[in-house]
């Protein structure tokens, strides 16, 4: 067991010890103390619209089933038979009346209650009553997003999210029909690196010019993008070029963090940058539909929010403008899997979802120009951290310039501050040392 005093020495104001990324013993502690306590994003209600609909996923390394119960609520059950321990539900998604264990046929209803046991004469009845698929103790849904915690007690979801809740509002508010729907397939990519490396990359405004230098250069040589939908390649070319934005732009971006380790980039992408012109008929039609639901003033407010990536620590990253959400599954100190979901906005013009799909391919695709270079660098960092020759990693960019905001957030002195890594490490230490 690692003492709290030892843990506290690993995270310092402007540096972090390599073992936080590379030590298997610390990873084991993280699974219990961090992933076992925090609210984790599991998915979206649209994945389980009707009673009996389910999908399987992981919480830390626990296999779980997310299911729409008969009472219409969402349940999360540990995917493990009470009898001999087999997973009762194969990997994937579907619809089930009962979850039936493949080993001896024990069957459970959608709430996890044990309903039938073959050869019941062999058991004392009172021993069987009360058995079932173990429910995950806390589940909460915020505007369609499904959260769960393996801990029976702790801060509620609203307290956990804090000001970061507004990023989910931004995500959902943008849908003219007021709802989002998971659609378009799920990318699943993996890398030989720690789970933190992804979360520390998504708010890093300095890395694109270097990590993505090759795709920026290729995109700059491409033909000029046109209006939305004019050329298939436009979305890809625009986004790859955007990674090469001048340093001054990255510096000017707002970058906020919370004490729970969440963070987001604001003041970055406007709809004009992304879709080739807010004056384009497609965008005007979208804005018209939005205004018809919520009024002109509210539509203007919603479209004036210019957030880019938001991190929900410790397992989620998402962005509203192209409607992407990533959930990271830590498998080992040096192995992580990421599931990437695309969302369709209800009642938005169809072209906008086609843009979402094209964007997912270029940024989150397992063979994309962009993601492949990120994954390469995560693995290179992990290789460096696995060496004991040098102990510390430096996280001091912008340190000393952090600004405390009235709403309790901490803002980086500029958009290129490493304030978000310091916030994540602060949250990490809090989870890891709290009794």
């Amino acid at each position: 067991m690692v003492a709290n005093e030892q843990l506290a020495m690993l995270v310092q104001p402007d540096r972090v010890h390599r073992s936080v990324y590379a030590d298997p013993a610390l990873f084991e502690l993280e699974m219990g103390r961090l992933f076992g306590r925090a609210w984790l994003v599991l998915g979206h209600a649209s994945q389980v619209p009707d009673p009996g609909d389910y999908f399987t996923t992981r919480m830390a390394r626990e296999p779980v089933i997310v299911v729409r119960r008969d009472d219409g609520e969402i349940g999360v059950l540990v995917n493990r038979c009470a009898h001999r321990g087999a997973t009762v539900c194969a990997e994937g998604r579907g619809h089930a009346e009962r979850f039936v264990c493949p080993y001896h046929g024990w069957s459970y209803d959608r709430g996890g209650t044990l309903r039938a046991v073959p050869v019941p004469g062999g058991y004392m009845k009172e021993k069987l009553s009360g058995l079932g698929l173990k429910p995950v103790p806390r589940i909460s849904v915020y505007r369609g997003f499904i959260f769960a915690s393996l801990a029976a007690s702790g801060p509620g979801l609203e307290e956990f999210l804090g000001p970061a809740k507004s990023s989910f509002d931004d995500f959902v508010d943008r849908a003219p029909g007021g709802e989002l729907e998971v659609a378009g397939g799920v990318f699943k990519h993996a890398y030989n690196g720690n789970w933190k490396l992804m979360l520390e990359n998504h708010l890093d405004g300095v890395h694109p010019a270097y990590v993505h230098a090759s795709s920026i250069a290729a995109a700059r040589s491409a033909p000029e993008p046109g209006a939305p939908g004019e050329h298939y390649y436009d979305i890809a070319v625009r986004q790859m070029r955007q990674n090469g934005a001048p340093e001054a732009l990255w510096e000017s971006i707002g970058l906020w963090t919370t004490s729970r380790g969440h963070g987001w980039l604001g003041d970055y992408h406007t709809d004009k940058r992304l879709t080739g012109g807010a004056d384009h008929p497609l965008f005007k039609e979208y804005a018209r539909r939005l205004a018809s639901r919520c009024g002109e003033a509210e539509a203007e407010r919603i479209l004036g929010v210019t957030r880019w990536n938001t991190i929900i620590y410790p397992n989620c990253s998402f962005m509203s403008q192209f409607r992407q959400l990533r959930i990271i599954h830590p498998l080992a100190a040096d192995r992580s899997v990421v599931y990437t979901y695309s969302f369709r906005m209800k009642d938005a013009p169809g072209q906008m979802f086609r843009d979402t799909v094209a964007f997912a391919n270029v940024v989150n695709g397992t063979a994309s120009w962009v993601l492949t270079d990120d994954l390469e660098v995560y693995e290179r960092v992990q290789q460096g951290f696995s060496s004991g020759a040098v102990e510390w990693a430096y996280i001091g960019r912008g340190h000393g310039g952090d600004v405390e905001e009235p709403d309790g957030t901490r803002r980086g002195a500029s958009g290129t501050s490493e304030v978000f890594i310091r916030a994540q490490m602060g949250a990490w230490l809090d989870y890891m040392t709290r009794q």
Partner: protein
Amino acid sequence: MARLHDPAVNVERFLYHEAHLLDTQQFEAWLDLFTDDAIYWVPLERDQKDAVQTSSIIHDDRTLLGLRVQQARHPRAHARLPLARTVHQVGNVMVLEDGIELKVASTLQLIEWRQEKQRAWGALVEHRLRRAEAGFKIARKRIDLVNSEAELDGMAILF
């Protein structure tokens, strides 16, 4: 037999040639095999019907495919330095349709090695070929990887 036999032989030679260009990293010459309106498609899902409503591992028009080749030549293409070494093994070549375009089915077994990591790929491949002066041009290539829906490490090769 002759009518089927000749184009099939030529088609086989063409597919071997294509594989050879990839395995010898002659990507510019490989790109020249494609028509200007070509589509190169690696679907994400089994039996995927379209590439506009569902994501794809790769779905490139000729412009985007060209950007992949350009990226591979960039001095800071981190995931492609060094380039993976590959062997594309093409088999089971069958000419399914022979008209203005040829529809050709084949199988692909591919060994990839880079940075101490060796990977094996298998795929069902469909080419749409148009006759051209020097044999054929590829108007469409669809590569259905057997493990397209798996949890996959980053892919920086061409199939």
